[in-house]
């Protein structure tokens, strides 16, 4: 007789108040996901991949409250000509959303597609399943099983404009589980933008299947209030000569865990994952990235920069796995943190696991305070210490921000950073 360990007791606690949606094409995938979850248990601190981040808040049944911002929220991507989709506390807001129609693109909602068959059936929960090895991602399985909504996007050509998903938090204790599925057929192109705090506690999954020659861009800002708890997963599969680029800017939030699991299955594909975060005080931000090279001649880049202050904690766990036969792999990974004061922390585990010889893989990781020589140089030219610190902070983040290809989008996010620096004068 085995005694249930904490991981397994937590599951029943966590799902006690949840209902497994029934009766549509996704039911089987949801049931399987619950089985997967029950086989691995909820995450625990002693799990290797949770050693730097406490998962407790994602395991408990109740949602710790997060203040709803009283300020009129500035919509980051409001200037962008995009198809707008709005979720308030995870509930689709039809009034503020555009008609779900775009040339070359078909868009459905998970909650609205109750038929027996759907193109997404072969993907929903499938990429998440692939992402469970070698390390379990229980929060991903939890999401597949219980997601209440999300969008299902099938792209057959070059989308004329981006899809802009806007999340609003309305209730102090909202607990939201959303699951998006995106499939880009051969040669298709799409950009997805995401912004806003979705809920007091959010569990968000995006599964992205990028077929041969297709191009997917993803730009996300997580502008949370100071109490939000967020766990996101991107599960992506890349075909021949395809491109996947994802960038995330995290501002505020009590706990943010962004996992990105990419499986490169086609030759000559490109995968870039990047992120910048700025945190002050009670802020814990964790980027966990796992890129599997299972094809020849592919390139992957991971670029993460963190600016931390007042006891804020930044975590980076990044891995490049090059399977046997994945020759000519070019893998690069950099994670750096700028600690603006003595209370902040940076915890990192940048890993390489390589089973092919004709590869060039490298990673670098640094942590330190602001460069005193540079600071003095700027000040000796009449720039105030505050302004000089901001300049150097933005310069530090620049390598990550440069991963955003679109100049206008990069500019918008840089303004977000400047705003944060302005609001958090040292």
């Amino acid at each position, binding site marked *: 007789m085995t005694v249930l360990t904490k991981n397994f007791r937590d599951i029943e606690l966590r799902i006690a108040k949840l209902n497994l949606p029934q009766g549509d094409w996704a039911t089987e995938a949801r049931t399987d996901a619950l089985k997967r979850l029950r086989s691995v248990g909820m995450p625990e601190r002693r799990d*290797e991949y949770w050693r730097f981040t406490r998962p407790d808040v994602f395991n408990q049944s109740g949602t710790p409250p997060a203040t709803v911002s009283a300020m009129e929220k500035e919509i980051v991507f409001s200037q962008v000509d995009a198809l707008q989709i709005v979720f308030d506390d995870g509930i689709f807001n039809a009034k503020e959303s555009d008609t779900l129609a775009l040339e070359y693109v078909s868009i459905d909602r998970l909650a609205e597609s109750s038929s027996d068959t759907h193109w997404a059936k072969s993907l929903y929960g499938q990429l998440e399943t692939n992402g469970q090895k070698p390390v379990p991602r229980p929060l991903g399985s939890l999401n597949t099983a219980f997601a209440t909504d999300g969008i299902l996007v099938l792209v057959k050509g070059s989308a004329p404009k981006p899809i802009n998903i806007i999340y609003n938090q309305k209730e102090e204790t909202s607990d939201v589980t959303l699951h998006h599925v995106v499939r880009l057929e051969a040669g298709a192109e799409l950009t997805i933008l995401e912004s806003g705090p979705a809920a007091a506690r959010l569990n968000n999954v995006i599964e992205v299947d990028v077929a041969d020659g297709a191009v997917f861009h993803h730009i996300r800002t997580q502008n949370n209030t100071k109490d939000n708890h967020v766990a996101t997963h991107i599960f992506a599969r890349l075909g021949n000569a395809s491109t996947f680029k994802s960038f995330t800017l995290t501002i505020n939030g009590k706990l943010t865990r962004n996992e990105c699991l990419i499986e490169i299955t086609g030759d000559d594909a490109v995968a870039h994952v990047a992120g910048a975060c700025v945190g002050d005080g009670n802020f814990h931000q964790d980027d966990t990235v796992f890129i599997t090279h299972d094809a020849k001649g592919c390139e992957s880049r991971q670029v993460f920069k963190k600016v931390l202050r007042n006891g804020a904690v930044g975590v980076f766990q990044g891995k490049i796995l090059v399977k*046997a*036969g994945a*020759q000519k792999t070019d893998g690069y990974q950099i994670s750096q*943190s700028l*600690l*603006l*004061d*003595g*209370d*902040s*922390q*940076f*915890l*990192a*585990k*940048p*890993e*390489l*696991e*390589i*089973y*092919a*010889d*004709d*590869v*060039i*893989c*490298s*990673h*670098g*990781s*640094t*942590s*330190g*305070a602001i460069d005193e020589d540079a600071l003095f140089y700027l000040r000796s030219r009449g720039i105030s210490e505050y302004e000089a610190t901001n300049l150097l902070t933005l310069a530090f983040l620049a390598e990550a921000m440069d991963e955003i290809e679109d100049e206008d989008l990069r500019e918008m996010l840089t303004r977000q950073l400047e705003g944060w620096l302005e609001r958090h004068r040292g």
Partner: protein
Amino acid sequence: MDSIVENVVVKDGVDQETVDAVREVGGAYKHGWSTDIEMEYAPKGLSPDIVKLISEKNEEPDWMLDWRLAAYERWLQKKEPEWAMVDYPKIDFQDQYYYARPKSMETKPKSLDEVDPKLLATYEKLGIPLKEQLILAGVDGAEELTGAPRKVAVDAVFDSVSVGTTFRDELLKAGVIFCSISEAIKDYPDLVKKYLGSVVPVSDNYYATLNSAVFSDGSFVYIPPGVRCPMELSTYFRINAENTGQFERTLIIADKGSYVSYLEGCTAPQRDIAQLHAAVVEIIIEEDAEVKYSTVQNWYPGDENGKGGIYNFVTKRADCRGDRAKVMWTQVETGSAVTWKYPSCILRGNETQGEFYSIAIANNMQQADTGTKMVHLGKNTKSRIVSKGISAGQAQNTYRGLVSMHPRAKDSRNYTQCDSLLIGDKCGAHTVPYIEVKNNSSRVEHEATTSKVDDDQLFYCRSRGMDEEEAVALVVNGFCKDVLQALPMEFAMEAQQLVAISLEGSVG
């Protein structure tokens, strides 16, 4: 070692002489022979009785036996660690001998003259004659190289017992204690009681706990305040008996302002059945003292199909207790079927320094999971890690390390460079560093690269007449240069040749 060319000068990186030396050495694992000698074994398996027996054989006081028995109880409750990237058949801890000593060692020889000639011949053959000669044997040119006669004191451990220790009297004159740990327990109980288990606690990890229960011998070093040890100290470990585990324990104490350089070598016969080696090394470094610890680990690696070889589970840790204490670990890991080893530095005092230089070569079916921990506790502490991993054949080679900057370790620095080289498409090279920074006045820099042997370099060498294997040896030696330079002269020479031998059969 007679094949070494005389008057070899170790230049930066590698040179033609190295290649010549490598060419002459030839042959695969060359310490695979065994000594036919009458042995006395404890019964197979592990139990409180075996622990008592080992203690009894070493004529230990009660406190030592109690310590061992407590460790044994702890061990029973512990689980074998599984996190390392090594895969080996489950070890049957009851199917091992935990104590084996040559019959002739039943009464401890009073001097080296009384030691069984067969044992002396064994070490002679390994290039470590147990004579009080000026220089470490096997390096005929060493005197010329260093410009001064160099003495190296040797403690020779054969299976479970220390056979003899050279230069003891001369060292004692300088105040330096150098003897086997079994003697130290009897002769210097206060020192042993004070320091044993103070760096690697009994319950530190599965193998350290096992070692604490059953260690049979090893070396003990005490350098008194202000003393610069007049010669290099070394311990040579030889596993000879079959089915026997070697559990050695080394304790080095460098008191205030002292200095010692310590060398360690290890070999074992070629046998079809894997053997266990679980050692613990503890180093205590007080204020302003400095210890250099160099290892050339050349245990039998098993054959090309992975049969036999030593399972090497080692816990080595240095505690820089006093301010400005310094430690430098240098290791060349070429042997063993499985290596699990993380020589670590606790930088407790202010302005302490830790360095770790490592070459780990895994060929054929070898698996190595090795690295270091740099734990910065004191202010203004510095650490440096240079790790060079080479994988060939179907081997798996992992660097695993931790750099930790505690909140009060203000103004500290770490630099880590960790490079992997792959030879052939069946092997693996992995890097698993943990970085934990908890203050902002410290700077941590970590860099790692993985690549294959550069084709252009190989072609260049071959166009100058080297065959492929020589060219690889040359290029790999160049790749390892930063670490080879950190080794004491005698070891650097041996290491360069080992690099070449270890890679034999890796090309083509």
